[in-house]
């Protein structure tokens, strides 16, 4: 209803912005569960540009006081080294008036001292806060008793025992937050016994903090807190956006202390823990009496032998799921896309527009959607493993092996997923904390032979070898070669990681100091929300790039059109339809003509010409320009190589098991009359596919996850370079040794 009333309403002053409340806590403290419980399900996922850290935000009502609730990345302290921690710290502290109005510190009651450490740091900044003592049910179950009142009296803030997963204590928490929001007074400063020398150093840095951010002068507590933050965070960090002056002065102060035989880090942290150790001892009325579920489970899951068996079993299930369980959904998407394309083609008048819509746009949407089943499944598993506590154990069990090539224990699941598809695997590298470790995994895992390479291998093996010839008992030649290729690709991937660790991603390896959280049942709601968040991020960020690339590729493979060719084939078709042959025969001939026309058009398209242009470069590898076109087409996705070869050779509806395509390829000859596909050129081509980054979707997702085009560019360059080099080596050495 657009009327005068609506206009008046839109001119009315906007209501004051809602206050912001941040949720801070250690990883695994149940922050996300509490966020969902407080906000309902209407969360928006914000993404900090460039560093790809997701922060969820939603409106929440605290006993009548409305606020924006922010779920910050988990962190153990305000001292930040990684991008995630930086986001958490900046959002929690802010500069000037930009910070939040209050914080809810989610403390894991089963690890009380460590959880309160973060709360203590926030109290030092003077931010109004409430402590939510989560997992209180687990504490009770263990037989321990924690007295929240003792904590409240000592810290001067409300400490509300809750069990977020059971919705216990939430209304008390809401009331406490509402009170803090309406009063807005800073909590009393905690009485941490820093030494005098330490204080002096902190004040030196604090003076500079005020110089850099003059608005901090208003609250001396905050400038001191920022100074302690700088002393604990800067140096060997991955932070962006830190003023150079602050870095310099901090380093100076720290060096001076070191020269005097002091350890500033120790001097800042130890007094905090000293205070907290006394406090938790006072508040713990009774210690745990029962052996925990985690101890019992770990006795098996981390057992020297049984632990490895369990590890292999869990990983097999994940692998099987990605490899097989996702196929029905992927096939269904493929069928639906094909049906849509047909329906559109039937409705639209034939022409460029129809082709653009069906092959470019609908085809591109298909190229994006086809990844969704694997992404959803992988993140369902990762979410389950992470929330249950087993993902940290995966890293614990396999770290020894991964470390040998410079990878983090947490890189195992992404690397394994790489056998199915690099796109979800690259997304899975988010579970790795350090950016350098994450990039390393991202750069190495696309070398794992993904399932899209399989059709190419199958087509080539069956074309150039007698694939079902038994060589080792029941093992056929084909499966032996396939096995060799998979082994080779794994070796290549691990070697690439080891090399990059020593070159482009050189640097001190971050320590594997990692919490092994207690086992807990994952919350289905949290899992599904996390899966949806990942799928959404893929669709909107990487999906748009994939769609655009599909359209460009389609145009390259379709234009320019040769109108003389079109006219000639139209005339031939008319001849067939007007002939006196039976209808079935006519249809067959028309189909053959269509396939032939598609081949002729493709050969003279931009991609076709580019293929010819590439021929001199491809010849030393044993390929010709037709293979070149196939390689260009395969940039959309590797398996497209098969259908592109079908089109180039004028064979309709070709897949890797199609006999006509295989026979045509077997007979295909170069201009000099020699056979194009020989065992040697076939192996050379397979080696090319092992290495080459023939996948725009991988590039799109690496762009999304790394936050810049630099990394996908490097990925493409090094993989294509290796592909060329190894194919060249195989073909030339093979030929020199007299093989064909």
């Amino acid at each position, binding site marked *: 209803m657009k009327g005068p009333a609506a206009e008046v309403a839109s001119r009315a002053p906007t209501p004051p912005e809602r206050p912001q409340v941040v949720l801070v806590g250690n990883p695994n403290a149940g922050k996300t569960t509490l966020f969902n419980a407080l906000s309902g399900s209407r969360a928006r996922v914000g993404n900090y540009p460039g560093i790809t850290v997701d922060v969820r935000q939603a409106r929440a009502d605290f006993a009548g006081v409305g606020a924006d609730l922010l779920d910050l990345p988990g962190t*153990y*302290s305000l*001292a930040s080294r990684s991008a995630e921690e930086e986001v958490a710290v900046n959002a929690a502290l802010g500069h000037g008036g930009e910070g939040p109005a209050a914080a809810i510190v989610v403390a894991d009651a*089963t*690890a*009380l*001292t*460590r959880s309160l*450490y973060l709360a203590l740091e926030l109290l030092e900044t003077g931010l109004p806060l409430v402590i939510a003592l989560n997992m209180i049910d687990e504490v009770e179950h263990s037989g321990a008793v924690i007295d929240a009142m003792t904590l409240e009296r000592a810290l001067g803030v409300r400490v509300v025992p809750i069990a977020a997963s059971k919705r216990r204590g939430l209304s008390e928490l809401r009331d406490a937050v509402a009170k803090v929001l309406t009063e807005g007074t800073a909590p009393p400063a905690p009485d941490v016994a820093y030494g005098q020398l330490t204080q002096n150093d902190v004040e030196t840095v604090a003076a500079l903090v005020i110089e850099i951010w003059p608005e901090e002068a208003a609250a001396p507590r905050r400038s001191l807190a920022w100074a302690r933050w700088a002393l*604990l965070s800067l140096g060997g960090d991955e932070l962006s956006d830190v003023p150079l002056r602050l870095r310099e002065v901090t380093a100076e102060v720290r060096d001076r202390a070191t020269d005097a035989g002091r350890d500033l*880090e*120790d001097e800042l*942290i*130890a007094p905090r*823990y000293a205070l907290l150790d006394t406090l938790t001892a006072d508040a713990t009325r009774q210690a745990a009496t029962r052996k925990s579920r*985690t101890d019992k489970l*770990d006795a098996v899951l*981390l*057992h*020297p*032998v049984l*632990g*490895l068996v369990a*590890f292999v079993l869990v990983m097999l299930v994940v692998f099987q799921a990605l490899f097989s369980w996702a196929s029905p959904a992927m096939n269904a998407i493929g069928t639906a896309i094909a049906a849509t394309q047909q329906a559109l083609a039937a409705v639209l008048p034939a022409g460029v527009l129809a082709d653009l819509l069906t092959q470019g746009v609908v085809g591109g949407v298909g190229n994006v959607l086809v990844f969704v089943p694997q992404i959803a499944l992988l993140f369902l598993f990762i979410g389950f493993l992470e929330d249950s506590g087993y993902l*940290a154990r995966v*890293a*614990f*069990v396999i*770290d*020894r*092996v991964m*470390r040998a090539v410079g990878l983090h224990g947490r890189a195992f699941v992404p690397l394994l997923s790489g056998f199915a598809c690099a796109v979800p695997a690259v997304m899975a590298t988010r579970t790795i904390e350090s950016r350098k470790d994450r990039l390393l995994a991202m750069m190495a895992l696309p070398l794992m032979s993904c399932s899209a390479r399989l059709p190419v291998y199958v087509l080539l093996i069956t074309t150039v070898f007698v694939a079902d010839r038994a060589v080792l008992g029941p093992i056929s030649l084909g499966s032996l070669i396939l096995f060799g290729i998979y082994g080779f690709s794994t070796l290549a991937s691990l070697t690439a990681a080891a090399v990059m660790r020593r070159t482009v991603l050189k640097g001190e390896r971050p*320590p*594997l*100091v*990692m*919490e*092994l*959280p*207690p086992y807990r049942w994952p919350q289905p709601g949290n899992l599904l929300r996390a899966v949806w968040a990942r799928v959404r991020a893929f669709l909107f960020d990487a999906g748009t790039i994939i769609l655009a690339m599909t359209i460009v590729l389609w145009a390259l493979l379709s234009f320019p059109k040769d109108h003389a060719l079109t006219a000639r084939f139209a005339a031939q078709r008319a001849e067939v339809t007007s002939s006196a042959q039976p209808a079935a025969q006519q249809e067959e001939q028309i189909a053959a003509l269509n396939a032939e026309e598609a081949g002729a058009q493709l050969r003279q398209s931009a991609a076709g010409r580019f293929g010819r242009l590439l021929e001199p470069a491809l010849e030393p590898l044993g390929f010709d320009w037709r293979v070149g076109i196939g390689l260009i087409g395969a940039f959309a996705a590797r398996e497209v190589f098969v259908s592109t070869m079908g089109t180039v050779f004028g064979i309709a509806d070709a897949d890797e098991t199609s006999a006509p395509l295989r026979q045509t390829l077997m007979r295909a000859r170069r201009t000099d009359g020699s056979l194009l596909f020989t065992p040697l050129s076939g192996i050379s081509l397979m080696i090319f596919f092992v290495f080459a980054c023939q996948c725009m979707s991988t590039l799109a997702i690496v762009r999304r996850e790394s936050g810049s085009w630099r990394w996908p560019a490097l990925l493409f360059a090094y993989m294509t370079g290796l592909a060329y080099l190894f194919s060249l080596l195989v073909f030339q050495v093979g030929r020199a040794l007299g093989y064909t």
Partner: protein
Amino acid sequence: MELGLLPGTEVEVVRAAPMLDPIELSLRGYRLSIRLAEAALVELSPALELSPSTAGRARLERAA
């Protein structure tokens, strides 16, 4: 260090990973995994080597 691995902290070596490295420590009521190379940087009293074979309690003398 901010996880509470400090001088004077009582830690228990719970177990080693199946491939002997890293090891699992228990301190302040929670579990931490740490590589042997990193564990070697901390000193313990009584003179107890942090190694997979020595499960037991110790007090941290000096942190890395």
